[in-house]
């Protein structure tokens, strides 16, 4: 604990909590029929490889497994093979695989695990020196189901698997692309009724998959009820309408931030995340609004402001009255 006090300026109290007492968010992954905790700090995304695609999606350069993540090769480290050296040698097993894309202090790689469980806030428990010396675990934790899980050290795994620093490569690239990157906006590429559309990634809060029956209606407007919080759902593509009569049909709703409120966009599929490029109308020097160049295709950007807010309490009475009158 540190105490810093300046007369007339205030006091700063610093309380340092040792890692052995720290609570960290971690993703619980499964491998060797055992649970391991992966600190969320190093995790950038998760990729699911279904069994039928395992053979094609995972490519091999001699002994090195690689995955094409948005056009760039990502070195893969199989957790199972790392933990049981010499036992599993053959090519890819024919089952579900999950790639946890990690960035461990500049070492970018994908850790292949057999399954994913929920993210948990875990309490780090120290390990005996004997087990710390293995070099792959930073500690252990007791999970919610009373099972023990070893906490994996992403950096140590990278070093052990021979993943080198990719930072230099990246920085050289970003020097060139920095100016461009600053202008490039990341978009979530979605498909709505056969058409591609883009939602600014910065506005996306989460993606929900709900059964059709969860969607309720205020008049003609579809809404989702999240524990008392209403989310207006935009259905220009007619995704909800298309699932009419099928109560169990899953509806994917992209929940976005629009100013201080949240809106949902019903989509058929979520395709990818990509950087958009500006488009100019011939003869003009200002970028055209509402469209962007995504993966070399002209894509419309969903106008979140266009989603009409739900009526306020004061206005509601009038509107409902009108609605009631028309119905009546």
């Amino acid at each position: 604990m540190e105490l810093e006090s300046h007369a007339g300026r205030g006091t700063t109290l610093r309380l340092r909590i040792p890692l052995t007492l720290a609570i960290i968010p971690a993703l619980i992954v499964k491998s060797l029929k055992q649970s391991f905790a992966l600190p969320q700090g190093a995790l950038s995304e998760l990729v699911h490889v279904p069994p039928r695609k395992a053979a094609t999606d995972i490519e091999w350069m001699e002994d090195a497994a690689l995955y094409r993540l948005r056009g760039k090769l990502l070195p893969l480290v199989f957790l199972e093979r790392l933990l049981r050296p010499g036992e599993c040698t053959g090519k890819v097993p024919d089952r579900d695989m999950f790639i946890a894309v990690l960035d461990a202090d500049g070492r970018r790689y994908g850790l292949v695990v057999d399954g994913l469980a929920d993210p948990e806030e875990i309490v780090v428990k120290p390990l005996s020196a004997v087990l710390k010396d293995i070099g792959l675990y930073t500690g252990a934790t007791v999970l919610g189901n009373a099972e023990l899980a070893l906490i994996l050290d992403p950096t140590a795994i990278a070093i052990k698997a021979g993943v080198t620093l990719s930072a230099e490569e990246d920085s050289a690239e970003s020097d060139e692309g920095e100016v461009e990157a600053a202008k490039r906006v990341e978009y979530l590429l979605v498909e709505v009724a056969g058409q591609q559309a883009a939602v600014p990634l910065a506005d996306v809060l989460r993606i929900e998959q709900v059964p059709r029956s969860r969607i309720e209606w205020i008049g003609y407007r579809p809404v989702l009820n999240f524990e008392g919080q209403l989310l207006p759902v935009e259905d220009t593509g007619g995704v909800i309408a298309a699932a009419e009569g099928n109560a169990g049909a899953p509806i994917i709703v992209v929940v976005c931030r629009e100013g201080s409120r949240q809106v949902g966009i019903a989509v058929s599929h979520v395709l990818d995340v990509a950087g958009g490029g500006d488009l100019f109308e011939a003869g003009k020097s200002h970028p055209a609004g509402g469209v962007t160049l995504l993966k070399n295709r002209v894509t419309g950007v969903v106008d979140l402001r266009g989603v009409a807010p739900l009526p306020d309490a004061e206005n509601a009475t009038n509107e409902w009255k009108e609605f009631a009158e028309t119905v009546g």
Partner: protein
Amino acid sequence: MSTARTTRRKKNVTAELVEMCSVRVGDGLFGIPIKHILEIVGSARPQPVPLAPAFVGGLMHYRGDVLTTVSLRRLLGLAPTEGTQDLLVVESSAGCYGLLVDSVGEVLTVSSADYEANPSTVNERRRSLFAGAYKLKDGLMVMLDPERLEPVRLARAG
């Protein structure tokens, strides 16, 4: 002659009585001084630790702490057993650890008069693990010293 007998009797009187927890591993009977045992956990299922040294039996959750366990079976080079194992939570000067044994027997009171140090013919590796033996009526009980079985020390010994 008579003096010799008296001294021997005297020695018997001063002989210390020690309480030993007897455990079985394979065909062997082993003893651990009961004052070093914090708890006995029946049918323990330690979580295996991949890449750990061979003698490590896994991790156990014990009162909010994570204990490293030492498998006596593996330490003695015996084949793994199918059945469940019992766990002793042992206290040593370097901290607590778990000791996995096949089964825990009764607590025996033994006299230090029946104690003998490791015979010279016991191989060196075993000699470093064992701390002598007590001659019981129906066999030998090999003494285990909690300090010598401490995981960090075992790792250092190789």
